[in-house]
């Protein structure tokens, strides 16, 4: 009997871990994301208690379709993105590099989801899979900042025993929450969702000694 309970517990753990697994996007890997509002948080930082509290708000059953709740609504953030490039010169002579960077429009709007909510790519457009996409669009600001797709060539000189890096910083807006899908009043799917809108992006060049 004990073995049976252990097996059931293990199975439940696997199911739970699968349920909250995050479909990670680029912004999840940013070096730093700081909310203007101290109480706001990202979906990846939701605890099981946060999920439970949010699900409680949408526990009323529905014939068919999604029930959504917005937990963090239009929360402004500042971020330091990943280092765009880093060139190290360990040698004893100066090196010259031609760098080519490209700005991509699709990085300006990013989506994440957990559990039964999925993200899909339709052409160049990222969206939540299924009818929940329209429901979320109706609930939150969902704009993209469109920037030039221009290729950016930059020549840089790296002195001996120094490195050069280009980092990006910026501002954005995060919305997140949870959702339940009902089919004949039965809850068949549930999970978390998050949208990240990048509103501005600034570049900084830094040269330092190794």
């Amino acid at each position: 009997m004990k073995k049976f309970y252990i097996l059931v517990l293990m199975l439940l753990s696997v199911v739970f871990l699968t349920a909250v697994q995050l479909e990670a996007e680029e912004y999840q890997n940013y070096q730093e994301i700081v909310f203007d509002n101290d109480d706001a948080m990202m979906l990846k930082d939701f605890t099981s208690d946060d999920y439970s509290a949010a699900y409680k708000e949408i526990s009323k059953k529905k014939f068919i379709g999604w029930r959504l709740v917005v937990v963090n609504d239009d929360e402004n953030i500042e971020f330091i993105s990943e280092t765009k490039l880093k060139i190290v010169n360990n040698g004893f002579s100066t090196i010259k590099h031609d760098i080519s960077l490209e700005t991509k429009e699709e990085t300006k709007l990013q989506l994440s989801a957990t559990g039964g909510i999925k993200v899909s790519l339709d052409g160049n457009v990222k969206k939540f899979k299924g009818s929940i996409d329209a429901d979320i669009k109706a609930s939150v600001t969902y704009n993209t900042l469109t920037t030039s797709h221009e290729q950016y060539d930059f020549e840089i000189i790296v002195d001996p025993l120094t490195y050069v890096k280009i980092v990006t910083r910026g501002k954005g807006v995060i919305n997140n929450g949870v959702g339940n899908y009902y089919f004949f009043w039965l809850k068949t799917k549930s999970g978390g969702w998050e949208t990240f809108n990048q509103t501005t992006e600034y570049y900084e060049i830094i040269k330092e000694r190794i």
Partner: protein
Amino acid sequence: MRKVFTVTIALFMVIGAVLIVIFDKEFETTLSILTIKQNYQRLMTEGEKLSLTVYLSSEDSFMTDMNNIDSMYLFDNENEIEVGLSKISYLDYKEKYQDIDYFAYVIDINFSVVSISDFILELENAYLEIHYLNTEVIDLEIGDIYLNFADYVNPSYIDIDRMFGLYKTTEFEYLSAVILGMNNFTGMDIIIKKIETGNKEISLDLKHSIILSDIPDYQADIDDLLGYNYDAMSLTEATDGININENSILCIPLLYGNELTRINRFPLIITYLYNQTEYRYYMDDFQFNSLVLGLEANSGRIREFVYHY
């Protein structure tokens, strides 16, 4: 027999409806091409291309087919240069402007047709002229161009170890100052005499620049750093330069000529005095922030070319 007639009539009605839907579409007799007038300032490295964004009122047009293009030129009132076409690519982006859908394309041009070295190409209010194989010619107004093809070598007396912009928001966000971490490797006085960007309308105001003790936050306000309200549209004042006798963090406000504009990319050409000799330090054109694409966001600087079929 009645059934056959009924089916035939129904079939005719369906075909007729389909034909009406197909031919009811208004035949386009004009093609509108929009450009956003901009300042292009570049230190041109070997093989570097210049990317120009254009918006067309039709997604399928002979204008954007590379195979139809015979030659291309950049010109202003005085100068003209033939340029090469590297590629034309659809940005997969469309925008409604004055109730018309416009499709964004990027034209990448190169400078391989005419060999240029150690030369500054300056075109004021420049046009891109495209000659098509069917003898059609279109002129697109693109803005001011400063392309420096200098093969430069920086003497190792000074260097920049940090650079980013500060911003201010009015009707839109504009670059209000540049923060430069300057290294002086000489152990002696170096005087920064001037800093050029290649843009005649926008200059770095050395007269009102200050030396900071710490690197400011990228969200710092230029007025707070200077201690007064800086007028970004005042006249340029002469200065003897700034003395850099050790590693310094310079905060240099930007002066805009007639109007505040969005500028996101330019080179720095620093003229400095060391040991009574004048030198130049070149920093390749750096992208300070991402360029906002879109017609609505740039409506004041849109130029239109209308082509009649």
